[in-house]
């Protein structure tokens, strides 16, 4: 795998996503919801933490990230441009990584807009910088995992709506696992809770840097990117 084609493709995809009006609609909705979630309890609770913004974020990401990634492959398959892309001197793995980096770049831009909230906290109180850094590492890990799921879902189908629904469903499944785990018997409960995102997200968000959590995010992301690559290759080679 070569770095150059990955970054060139990522830049092209990012430019195309930024040029799409739908991206702005999604971005505005995301920032409005987050802004409201952050501001409204801040003065009521009189605490300088990101809790009110962080707690609902996994649920918001289950909608937001599949919506941003749904076009990535489905549109290429629908319009046939995958044939042009696949007959350029680029490897399939470079195509997948290029699109993944573009999706991460866009999500990164949106998350960067929320950096305004910790800044506000520094003005109104004395937040714990370690916890804030942990929170943003946690957000990036969650975004990276969900972006891999969204990309995988997009490679499934030529239909963007179906790609969104599949992506949302799988992300939501990982979101639900911690809650479902409470109703399961002991052995299964621990296993299912380990698969869910909430425990790993909360630990990092509290500023607790555990390699098990980092391994969870990395292996989950790798698994869905590998699955995405397999689908892209199998669609071409059918």
């Amino acid at each position, binding site marked *: 795998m070569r770095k150059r084609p990955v970054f*060139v493709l990522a830049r092209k995809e990012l430019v*195309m996503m930024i*040029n799409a009006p739908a991206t702005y609609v999604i971005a505005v909705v995301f920032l409005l919801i987050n802004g409201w979630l952050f501001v409204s309890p801040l003065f009521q609770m009189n605490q300088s933490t990101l809790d009110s913004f962080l707690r609902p974020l996994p649920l918001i990401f289950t909608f937001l990230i599949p919506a941003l990634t749904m076009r990535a492959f489905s549109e290429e398959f629908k319009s046939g441009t995958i044939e042009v892309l696949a007959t350029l001197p680029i490897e399939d793995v470079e195509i997948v990584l290029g699109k993944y980096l573009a999706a991460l770049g866009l999500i990164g831009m949106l998350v960067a807009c929320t950096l305004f909230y910790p800044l506000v906290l520094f003005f109104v109180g004395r937040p714990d910088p370690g916890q804030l850094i942990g929170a943003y590492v946690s957000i990036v890990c969650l975004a990276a995992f969900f972006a891999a799921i969204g990309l995988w879902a997009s490679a499934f189908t030529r239909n963007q709506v179906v790609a969104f629904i599949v992506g949302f469903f799988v992300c939501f499944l990982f979101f639900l696992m911690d809650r479902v785990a409470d109703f399961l018997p002991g052995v299964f409960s621990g296993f299912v809770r380990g698969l869910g995102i909430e425990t790993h997200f909360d630990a990092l968000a509290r500023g607790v840097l555990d390699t098990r959590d980092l391994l969870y995010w990395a292996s989950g992301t790798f698994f869905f990117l590998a699955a995405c690559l397999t689908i892209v290759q199998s669609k071409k080679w059918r």
Partner: protein
Amino acid sequence: MINVSQLTKTYGATLALDHVTFAVQPGEVVGLLGPNGAGKTTMLKMLTGYLPPTEGSARVANFDILDQSLAVRQRIGYLPETNPLYEDLAVYESLEWTARLRGMAPSMYAGAIRKVIGECGLDSVVGKDIAHLSKGFRQRVGLAQAILHDPEILILDEPTSGLDPNQQLEVRQLIQTLKQKKTVLLSTHILSEAQTACDRVLIIHKGKIVADGTPDLLRQTLSKGQRLLLELKAPAADARETLARLPGVERVSVQKESGAQVTVMLESAETDLREAVFELAVQKHWPILQMTPETFSLEDVFRQLTIS
């Protein structure tokens, strides 16, 4: 330049290509001719590395299409049948991204883009979004993308499909200018295109190559029998019956009938009918107004080979 050996492709139970073997020499313009569904597009998709063969092998620019796919893709320019383009991009952007994805350096691609814009007549639409272009311009953008990196080999899948006659002529002229320095393999079902643009024609039918040669050679060797167009001053029914009884005549068809004149087409297996027709006309006192031996066109050859 292109060597195909026993290439076979199946889609489930459907056999799309059946042990096809052929070679294309450097500088040749070869046309893959065949009815829809004959296997032309499948063949080109395999040569460009988009589809894997089920059996057999192929080398393009001396590289194996499976084991050295990346090297093959670096050396070919490909225009797919449906000419898919990124609609949201402007023409220049689209060419620029293609150049970058091909690994061309900015110092190199700026000049290359200017060149293909001129060659493909895209000057007037450079800044326009591809979504707003006419079919003709879209085809030119596809062609410009295919030749941007100055490839050794051009693979064009129905390059003039859906274009009006003027646009078809322009694309053919462009292919003619390109053929001086490139090897071109193009698929088409437009016979006149194969006749005018190609040095050699491969007729493909039901996944097999049924004819291979220059358009003239195919006409001469594959056209069975002779045809004679005859215009006589004679009663139509009588002329038809009498001419049909001549030795060697296989078929008589009346083309036109006006007053005392009749135009008929005589078809024979091998015999030259002209003397016999002349003697019959003298005997019957039917003045011959015209007697022209008709040559078989590539279209006739194509129909002979591909009508099951």
